[in-house]
């Protein structure tokens, strides 16, 4: 009986609250800012179809703003469009265009400060400098937004989804293109990114620093200027993402700098100049990833230690692994290498002789990039063969003692 009473009371309070919250309709030609000023805490604003030329719309109380068939909020290239510093603000179904183009105030489509429990869903942002900009906030939901910008150069645009000093957030199903960085996280913890499509941004698809305990699942990073670069972070989970077609001299499927205690699992690296570039990484696991048609599948610098690469597929890469020193403190085991030429007498599907993934030529090219001109010449083939038989220059410990005879069937629902 007691619990029933309690339930009844809660229900009553809830319905009271909903009774209090009014719904205000904003018609074409009216001012959104005025409507916000007049609204009470917790009200819902429905913005009707139309074009609203407003900027610096400030929200300092809990509000829900819903657009009906994508009303256009045009910032006229001046400053920010929305500024939010409140709890429980929900923005949905708006089309926000033309913010200012300035680094002075980091002009953004929607900018949150010191906010909590907020959500931004189903919005379209076009020609914004920064798209969605969050600082010092928590419990954010950023979902199904479409962000695009058309800058010619990197400095002419800001980041798509930018979080600074945020935590406990959720970034799902967004599409970001043409910005500087697709998703930028700095000092962001406990955040999950799922199923985002990050394509053709000028600098990095995903860029984070000092952002511990985050996970990135089933995102696609394609054709970004320099791929993905992540730094100075521990405890990262990257699962079933696709990194593809990041081509160029300093372009990476993913660049890992000082990443520790992390897991990179089930990802697909396809047609990148460098699949994974690692520097100063420790104690991370790379498992069940598929590396196909990359220039270098992995560039593993000698500053990395205690990393494990297991059960990955290496297929049709020009170079499987290259490194810059002779010291190898990492483990390679049970991988499938398409260049493996060994045999399996006992039929346990593991090759009987170890595989050395570093070729002599890749060592030479690492030292002198111009030597690339001799790639696939008879001489280089001959040298590589000799080195395979009698290793002298290539690091002795870079070795997979249990290479698989058949590729793993690595499946992901992310396509």
């Amino acid at each position, binding site marked *: 009986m007691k619990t029933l009473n309690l339930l009844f009371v809660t229900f009553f309070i809830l319905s009271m609250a909903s009774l209090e919250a009014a719904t205000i309709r904003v018609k074409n030609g009216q001012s959104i800012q005025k409507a916000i000023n007049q609204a009470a805490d917790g009200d819902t604003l429905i913005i009707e179809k139309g074009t609203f030329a407003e900027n610096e719309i400030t929200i300092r109380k809990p509000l829900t703003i819903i657009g009906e068939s994508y009303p256009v909020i045009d910032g006229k290239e001046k400053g920010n469009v929305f500024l939010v510093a409140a709890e429980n603000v929900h923005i949905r179904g708006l089309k926000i265009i033309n913010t200012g183009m300035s680094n002075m105030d980091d002009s953004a489509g929607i900018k949150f400060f010191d906010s909590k429990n907020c959500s931004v869903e189903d919005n379209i942002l076009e020609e914004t400098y920064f798209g969605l900009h969050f600082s010092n906030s928590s419990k954010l939901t950023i979902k199904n937004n479409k962000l695009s910008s058309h800058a010619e150069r990197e400095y002419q645009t800001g980041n798509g989804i930018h979080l600074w000093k945020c935590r406990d957030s959720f970034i799902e199903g967004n599409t970001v293109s043409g910005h500087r960085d697709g998703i930028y996280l700095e000092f962001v913890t406990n955040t999950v990114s799922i199923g985002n499509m990050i394509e053709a941004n000028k600098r990095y698809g995903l860029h984070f620093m000092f952002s511990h305990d985050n996970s990135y699942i089933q995102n696609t990073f394609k054709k970004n200027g320099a791929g993905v670069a992540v730094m100075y972070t521990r405890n990262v989970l990257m699962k079933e993402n696709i990194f593809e077609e990041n081509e160029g001299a300093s372009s990476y499927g993913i660049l890992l700098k000082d990443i520790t205690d992390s897991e990179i699992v089930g990802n697909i690296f396809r047609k990148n*100049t460098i699949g994974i570039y690692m520097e100063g990484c420790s104690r991370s696991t790379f498992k069940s990833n598929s590396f196909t048609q990359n*220039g270098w599948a992995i560039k593993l610098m000698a500053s990395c230690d205690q990393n494990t690469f297991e059960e990955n597929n290496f297929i049709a890469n020009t170079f499987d692994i290259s490194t810059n020193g002779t010291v190898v403190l990492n483990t390679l085991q049970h991988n499938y290498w398409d260049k493996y030429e060994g045999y399996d007498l006992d039929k346990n599907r593991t090759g009987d002789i170890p595989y050395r993934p570093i070729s002599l030529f890749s060592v030479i090219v690492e030292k002198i990039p111009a030597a690339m001109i001799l790639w696939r010449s*008879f001489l280089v083939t001959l040298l590589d063969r000799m080195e395979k038989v009698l290793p002298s220059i290539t690091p002795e410990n870079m070795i997979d003692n249990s290479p698989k005879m058949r590729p793993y069937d690595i499946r992901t629902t992310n396509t």
Partner: protein
Amino acid sequence: MFKLLKYALYDIVKSRFALLYTLFMVLVAISIYQVSEDMSKVSLSLLNIMLMIIPLISAIFATTHFFNNLEFTELMLAQPVKRRDVFLSQILAVIFVLSMAILIGFGAPMLLWGADASVLILLAIGIGLSVIFAGLAFLASVLTRDKAKAIGISLSFWIYFSLVYDGFVLYLIYSLADYPLEKPTLALVFLNPVDLGRIIMLMQLDISALMGYTGAFFQDFFGSAKGILLSSAVMFIWMILPVTAAMRVFKRKDF
């Protein structure tokens, strides 16, 4: 001239070498097509075979052909025909047979399983290399009287262009590693037809985009109209040069 060419061709076909060579090419191409699915992989494997085999076969075949037909050539020289015609009929017959072997050998499987622009360029490079090495072999032949010596010289041409030269380039790059080497290596590539053919072909495949800075540099050059024009012009010069040199020697040679 045409009559001479006709007899030279008859002679080659009779020796059955042409048939065997074509058959060998077909077998190689078919097995490569069977093994790999991807078109660019097929081109790469064909390229590997081509850069090794075609210069070698061309050089040896052209030399042996020259000496096998030496008596016929001497007989013809006693007739009222131009020396130029005698020489050209012999070398053109060799070039024709070698080119047909490549066209049929590599081309027929391509017709069956499909081709793209890169494979067509591969064919052109194969024919170019045949012409160059047939020319070099004729040059070696007219410079000596001895068949074994001529084959030796032809083989050393082959070893030089496919192995020694690259070793020299590698050594140079290694010892001058502190300098920007992109442009000098580009110039060095033009001095070796085998390297030139290889680079032209590699630049056709999209993997070249994945080769880092140097790859991008070469892609930039060989992808531009200027680069294509220059590289095909240099390839053409390589085709003409040995043949004309051999012809000059042949014209003045005392048999």
